[in-house]
């Protein structure tokens, strides 16, 4: 008897190891069918949880590990190792005279008035930082040759003293890496047990403090990551996995195990990146290439600008902040990252009256335990969730689909005692105040963030997910002047979807400064072609057919003499002198939109040339499976009345207080359905609140879309 042949591997799997849960999604790209799994994270041996959740999810669905073609993985292990200071015993070798760069830092105070300020603590203490006789100049020339004998002696002593890792950071090595490489060779020869990271490999960019901080972080976590990844590969092989195993990077790109092991610092923050990628994928599917993604949970809110179908990438960020939400209080990392801002605003954020008699909300949070007062677990401080309950936005009987009853009276008591009475307001006014202030905190952060990245928030529809996001999104959109609000169906599974929604893609950048008016266009075309060629080769090697590869090009431009550039998209095809005026006009358009006025009459230059080479955008049709609409009633207007399951009193200042507000069952609203606010749209894990007069519709992807005027 012969067994039928195994179908060729084609499933795609995404796995996310979070602090509490390890989540998995498996998708059959041919049918759009998918399954989701969740187990507790196993911190001692994280790959055990991956195996468990993989088998738990595949087996009951009749799938096997051997049928998986791509497995894409993200993890918070690297971030945690840095925060908990659990990396290797690491030393730093620097150019003579500069071992303190990482401690001297930027020399300023990130809070002007705080006399009790603290600076971030470097990963390498001063007694493990060593000057090495050596000096390279800004031109790349050598002023002082590397003293190899000294390096050899240091390396031997470090190894003998049980050190495990060494970061080598010499000045101007991003211009001339020879001395760093020579040092690495010496260390490898006399002390092969030491892991070495060179700053010219990890982060070849100007500014010694940030480059050193990044290089140290890389080698500090390297062994941990390598051991983990090889262990996981081994485990997967044992389970019969023969497909490709990729790691999600902080930039939203994906990489092989080999690259991830060499540059583990690129894995930082890959979990939150996935949420932004998921928003990108939903937005693209619904025809929105520009979005502000807004993910609000219990403790924090995260916002990300998605522009032209791509999340914005920053080239630096911070880890292990002294004050979580204060920029400047963390260790700098120079690495491309999907740029998210995190704000201390969530459902659990606590409200209080401050010394000025003003109402403040967050950033401290009641967390999950004891949680908001209305959870009835002993929480005594009024929170955002308590306010939402008082305002009628939450149904005390339908929280988490009715699995948890909420204590409205308790919430009212706490708000009265702690907020309303001290401020001389009614309970409702106080609750509305809490709601309004937390929304305003988020919109202020979003506005400054968007501007910092040169984006005008008024051009970006808001895409809301997370447990609390859809409840606050309407006010946030009003305050930001957003043109529209989108709330996807099934916000709870969005993050894992992100792992699978990223196309295989590679980013390239070449620094080649040149003024627009004096451009050697042949050279520009050659640079672009070179990058496109590399992208083409890498993608084809990863199995993407040549016909499905696309390249996007952009130039970072500025007025000559400025320090910051703005990205300007380039047209397809060869560039030539006739395009210079068009590029200048495009630059000026973007510049004026951002900064209201043009700059001084000086020439404009291109600093960097960029190419993003991508495979096809994986198509994800998950919503059909999530939709539990069994009515088979696809009639849009009929679905509105079917979905309307009642009404309750909810607070809207436009109606001067409480008003009778229709409640809709999200699962019963069909594509094309339209209705007007005020409205409450409920699903199991989240509720969308829409203000009076707003026009709502359900689009083809079952997103709830509110056009804001």
């Amino acid at each position, binding site marked *: 008897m012969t067994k039928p042949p195994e179908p060729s591997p084609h499933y795609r799997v995404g796995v996310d190891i979070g602090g509490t849960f390890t989540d998995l999604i498996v998708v059959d790209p041919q049918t759009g069918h998918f399954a989701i799994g969740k187990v507790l994270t196993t911190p001692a041996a994280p790959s055990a949880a991956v195996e468990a959740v993989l088998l738990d999810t595949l087996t009951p669905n009749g799938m096997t590990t051997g049928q998986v073609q791509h497995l894409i993985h993200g993890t918070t292990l690297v971030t945690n190792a840095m925060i908990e200071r659990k990396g290797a015993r690491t030393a730093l070798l620097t150019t003579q005279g*500069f071992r303190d760069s990482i401690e001297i830092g930027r020399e300023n105070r990130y809070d002007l008035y705080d006399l009790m300020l603290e600076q971030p603590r470097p990963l390498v203490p001063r007694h493990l930082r060593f000057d090495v006789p050596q000096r390279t100049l800004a031109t790349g020339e050598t002023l002082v040759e590397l003293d190899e004998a000294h390096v050899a002696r240091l390396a031997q002593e470090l190894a003998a003293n049980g050190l495990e890792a060494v970061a080598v950071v010499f000045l101007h090595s991003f211009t001339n890496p020879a001395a760093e490489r020579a040092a690495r060779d010496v260390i490898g020869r006399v002390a092969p047990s030491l892991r070495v990271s060179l700053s010219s490999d990890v982060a070849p960019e100007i500014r010694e403090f940030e480059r050193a901080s990044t290089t140290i972080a890389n080698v500090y976590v390297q062994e941990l990551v390598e051991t983990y990844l090889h262990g996981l590969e081994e485990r997967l092989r044992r389970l019969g996995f023969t497909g490709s195993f990729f790691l999600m990077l902080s930039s939203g790109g994906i990489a092989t195990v080999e690259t991830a092991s060499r540059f583990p610092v690129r894995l930082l923050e890959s979990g939150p990146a996935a949420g932004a990628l998921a928003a990108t994928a939903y937005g693209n599917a619904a025809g929105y290439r520009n979005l502000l993604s807004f993910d609000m949970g219990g403790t924090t809110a995260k916002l990300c600008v998605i522009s032209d179908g791509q999340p914005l990438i920053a080239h630096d960020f911070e880890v292990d902040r002294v004050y979580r939400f204060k920029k400047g209080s963390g260790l700098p990392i120079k690495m491309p990252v999907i740029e998210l801002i995190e704000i201390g605003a969530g459902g659990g954020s606590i409200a209080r009256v401050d010394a000025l008699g003003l109402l403040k909300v967050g950033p401290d949070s009641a967390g999950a335990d004891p949680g908001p007062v209305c959870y009835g677990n002993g929480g005594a401080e009024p929170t955002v969730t308590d306010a939402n309950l008082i305002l009628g936005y939450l149904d005390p009987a339908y929280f988490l689909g009715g699995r948890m009853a909420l204590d409205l009276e308790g919430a009212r008591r706490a708000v009265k005692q702690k907020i309303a009475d001290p401020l001389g307001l009614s309970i409702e006014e106080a609750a509305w105040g809490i709601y309004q202030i937390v929304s305003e905190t988020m919109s202020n952060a979003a506005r400054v963030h968007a501007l910092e990245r040169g984006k005008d928030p008024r051009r970006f529809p808001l895409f809301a997910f997370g447990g609390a996001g859809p409840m606050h999104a309407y006010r946030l959109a009003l305050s930001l002047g957003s043109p529209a609000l989108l709330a996807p169906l099934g916000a709870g599974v969005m993050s894992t979807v992100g792992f699978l929604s990223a196309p295989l893609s590679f980013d390239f950048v070449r620094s080649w400064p040149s003024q627009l008016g004096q451009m050697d266009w042949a050279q520009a075309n050659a640079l672009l072609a070179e990058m496109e060629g590399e992208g083409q080769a890498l993608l084809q090697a990863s199995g993407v057919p040549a016909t499905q590869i696309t390249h996007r090009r952009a130039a970072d431009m500025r007025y000559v003499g400025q320090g910051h550039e703005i990205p300007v998209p380039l047209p397809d095809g060869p560039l030539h002198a006739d395009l210079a005026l068009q590029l200048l006009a495009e630059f000026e358009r973007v510049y004026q939109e951002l900064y209201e006025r043009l700059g001084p009459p000086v020439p404009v230059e291109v600093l960097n040339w960029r190419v993003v080479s991508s495979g096809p955008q994986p198509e994800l049709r998950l919503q059909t499976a999530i939709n539990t609409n069994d009515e088979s009633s696809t009639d849009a207007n009929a679905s509105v009345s079917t979905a309307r399951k009642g009404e309750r009193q909810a607070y809207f200042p436009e109606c001067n207080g409480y008003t009778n507000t229709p409640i809709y069952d999200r699962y019963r609203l069909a594509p094309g359905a339209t209705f007007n606010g005020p409205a409450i749209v409920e699903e199991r894990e989240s509720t969308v609140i829409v203000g009076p007069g707003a026009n709502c519709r359900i689009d083809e992807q079952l997103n709830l879309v509110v056009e804001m005027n």
Partner: protein
Amino acid sequence: MSSLNPIQLEVMWNRLLSVANEQQVALMRTAFSTIVRESQDLACGVFDTRGFMIAQSLTGTPGHINPMATGAKHFLHAYPPETLRPGDVLVTNDPWMTAGQVNDFTVMTPVFRGQTIVGYFANCCHAPDIGGRVLSAEAREVYEEGLRVPIMKLFDRGEPNHELLKIVRANVRTPDETVGDLYAQTSCNAVGARSLLQMMDEFNLESIDPLADEIISRSERAMRDGIRQLPNGRYSHEVWSDGFEEPIRICVTVTIADADIYIDFAGSSPQSSRGINVVMNYTHGYASFAMKAAVSPEVPHNEGAFRPVHVTAPAGSILNCKEPAAVASRHLIGHFLPSAIFGALAPALPGKLMAGSADPIWLNIYRGTWPQTGKPSQVTVFLVGGTGGRAVKDGLNTTGFPSGVAGVPAEVIETLAPVVQMQRTLRTDSGGAGQFRGGLGQATQMRSRGADQWSVSPMVDRTQFVAQGLEGGQPGALGEFKINGESRQPKMVYWMEPDTTVDLNPPGGGGYGAPGQRDPQAVLADVVNGYVSIEGAARDYGVVIRFTGELDSLVRLPEHYAVDAAATQELRSTFE
């Protein structure tokens, strides 16, 4: 606006703060000079129609924030609202009207809603060059220090004032950067105005003045509540600066009278013949900064925070100089004021203040010529020392106080000028000893890689007078300025041969509490990390530490050191 409840107020107040931060972001992203975009030597603020500052951006430096606020009133006086049209932008760098030196340009823009002015935006930042002598303390009159622009229009109904810009370009060493930054300052205010108008539409506001009244009165009340916590009384203190030709005495008497604070600098030295004089605006700026940090750091900074603080200094004194005094290096004196005031207030605020800090930021300018092209080069470098120890923790190593300006990386410096920074390292034993140690200063050395003469304008202080300790803490180490290893007058411009070395070593902060009270294990950790030497541990702390490792070892770990408990006990018994 009696209808303004605390919640609407909070929402709109926060919005104004966010608008000011948008301003700052726009300024940094459009600026041309490294002083603005790397070092953030700037301030941005929102003003009501009466010229009261109601919000400022998050960072910046007190020497710009408060003088900019005072300067707004001069702008309004020179150009009353009826003389302004949409698209107008005003500018000045008059030291007596704004930030006390001609390098600091303040740009102010009226915001029109229809044909009505509803508020103003202003910002102030340090121009990379303004002509005259290069920025130094050498001048004897303000006229030598560069081009002075009285309050005038930078833009007239949207059109650049080309005549003014031509004059600026012709007078400065860095025309593209200096003029480019003026454009950036204009964009900065325009971005603020856009957001303010959007906010007024959204909240249906005809005027922001009632909102301003509420913000100012609440801030004033909070500041006064903070002051009431302090015991009434008169508290005096004095500190000394190196000065130019002779040491300068800064004498302060702080009088707390219920909900008001009077800060008087009578008894301070008369104005100097050289460029270290401080205009009243600047004196007021740092004095009110100190009070706010001491009394109510959490209250947003605005007009209301100034009102309970009354600052006076005798006309013609170093802290209230008269024209045509030279003022370019006024920060070297002005930055002493917070430490002087903290010294006076220490008995009134036990446990809340820090010991003396390095104080003046070290602003050094290097000039030379590029070896290949022969073109002139000029770069401005900021350096800072340590801050004072606090009642519960050590001071901060190499962190500026009171200035909020950031340093410039060696790699950036060396790209902008033909110089080589040979070291930038923490100075062992420079932090004042104490139960909580003062922050360490640093040691830096610069050389040239050009073939021609090059110059340094060091502009430094605290090379003669230490940062004082508090509550029994010891002073920090002095700062040092040396050319080829020899100490030189720290405020002159020096032209040097190519193979010269310049050492600039900012001072350490003072310690807090008696050194004999410092935990020996904390002293041990300091020795392991080289913050304190083995000799310093015994001399300053009475803690005897033995190195038990190999004498010729390069790698020295914590396990290679030990506290000799018996010897420590004996030595400490000789400490009082």
